[in-house]
């Protein structure tokens, strides 16, 4: 008797789980994207407006750009929205993506403690700032996770003629974590770090941190959006995915992006062609 009760409840639990697990089939797409867009609340603002117009639900998986591209290569997404132009173009060239569209931009900034031990505040050129950090051996927290931000940071060091990984573990510290976690760590040990402006503005645990370097053209941060190629991934929800991309690129979508504010600041600047 008791055993049959246990058996029945087990079956019921399984049925309940399986029946509610599958999301409404074609009206939902998976968007592989970055933590910077997600953590700023951008999608919470954007997606309900899109859904209202089209009825399409967008499920966002927010990871680093590197992992987002890897997941999408496994066909685990319908649309990719990231910010490393070179990798995105490679993704398309290899046939995984149908076409890359320029969507919007913002910029990277170097943040650090108010005490500014390397005296970089207000410097125009990123490379000068990085050289001063390196020579003064001031702490610098790197994402170290092959994300878009990490790749940009490596490029910035390279163009400054510095190889910081030689100092890894001393003043150069690779967190191997997402933007938010890296910001938490940077604040915790009073180190400089490179972050996209959206993540920074939305970040709540700033303590005495401020932006020291911004505005250099090397800090430009372009976002692109790509529909996964159905020839590589037959299960791609092409129609809904393309609808999402079309909407983002339309004047309506671009206006929505422009109108998004966090703490009174505009975080993303639409620049679709």
């Amino acid at each position, binding site marked *: 008797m*008791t*055993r049959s009760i246990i058996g029945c*409840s*087990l079956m019921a*639990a*399984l049925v*309940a*789980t*399986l029946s*509610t*697990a*599958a*999301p409404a089939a074609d009206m939902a797409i*998976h968007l592989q994207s970055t*933590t910077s867009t997600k*953590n700023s609340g951008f999608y*919470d603002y954007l997606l309900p407006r899109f859904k209202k117009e089209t009825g399409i639900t967008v*499920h*966002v*998986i*927010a990871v680093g750009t590197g992992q987002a591209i890897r*997941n999408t*290569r*496994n*066909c*685990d997404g319908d649309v990719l929205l990231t910010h490393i132009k070179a990798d995105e173009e490679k993704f398309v060239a290899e046939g995984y993506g149908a076409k890359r569209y320029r969507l919007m931009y913002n910029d990277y900034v170097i943040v650090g403690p108010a005490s500014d031990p390397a005296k970089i505040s207000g410097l125009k050129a990123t490379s000068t700032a990085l050289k001063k950090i390196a020579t003064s051996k001031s702490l610098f927290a790197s994402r170290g996770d092959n994300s878009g931000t990490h790749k940009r940071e490596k490029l910035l060091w390279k163009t400054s003629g510095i190889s910081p990984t030689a100092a890894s573990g001393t003043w150069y510290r690779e967190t191997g974590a*997402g*933007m*938010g*976690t890296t*910001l*938490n760590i940077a*604040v915790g040990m009073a180190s400089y770090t490179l972050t996209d402006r959206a993540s920074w503005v*939305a*970040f*709540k*645990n*700033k303590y005495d941190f401020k932006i020291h370097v911004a505005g250099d053209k090397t800090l430009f941060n372009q976002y692109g959006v790509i529909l996964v190629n159905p020839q590589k*991934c037959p*299960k791609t929800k092409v129609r809904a995915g393309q609808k999402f991309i079309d909407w983002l690129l339309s004047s309506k979508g671009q206006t929505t992006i422009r109108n998004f504010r966090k703490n009174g600041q505009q975080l993303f600047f639409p620049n679709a062609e």
Partner: protein
Amino acid sequence: MQEFSDALLLAFELIFSGDKDLIEIIGLSLRVSLTAMVVACALGLPLGAILAISRFRGRRPVLVILNALMGLPPVVVGLLVYLHLSRAGPMGSFGLLYTPTAMIIAQVILILPIIAALSRQILEDLNAEYAEQFLSLSVPRRAVISALLWDGRYALMTVALAGFGRAIAEVGAVIIVGGNIDHLTRVMTSAIALETSKGDLPLALALGFVLLLIAFAVNAAVMSLRLTTGRYANV
């Protein structure tokens, strides 16, 4: 310490405001982890019982491996399940990745060794007491297993709770196979991870308190069940 009391206060506010999103997240956490616990028990308890009463070559290495698997890192489980459920993976056609079902599968794998290993220990002790009597009565193997499971049920509840605790507290596996998708696969732990990465430490900590409260409520519910019906368990 200011943050700590802020977080406590916030936790109470969250609970008593009946925030819709929070209730949804709590509901999913419970659904996923309780289902994982039930499934893991359905598989793990009989497995534990079979191991408890069986003597075969290589039993010792099997037990060592099983015990070691109790320490399975959630992230590794998450990765393994991801690779299988990915659309490019062998079970991709089921479309389970980034669904609660995927999270349940990952948690079942995570806690199955805990359920099996701990129940094996408990049932082996119980069997040591019953074995000669059962042999004398020529009780068939299946009946031995069900008798051990039934008579050990109160101790096994604690085993189930240990599994549930591990499941509801882990984040590494669910975040990989669930994707922490808002309104679909976001659970308490992945929400805490998200708020932490947003730098909203008080909210993250408050959610942590809520999670603790859930775990406490589930444990209290099981224990009171044990108290009200558990009088046959006296040794």
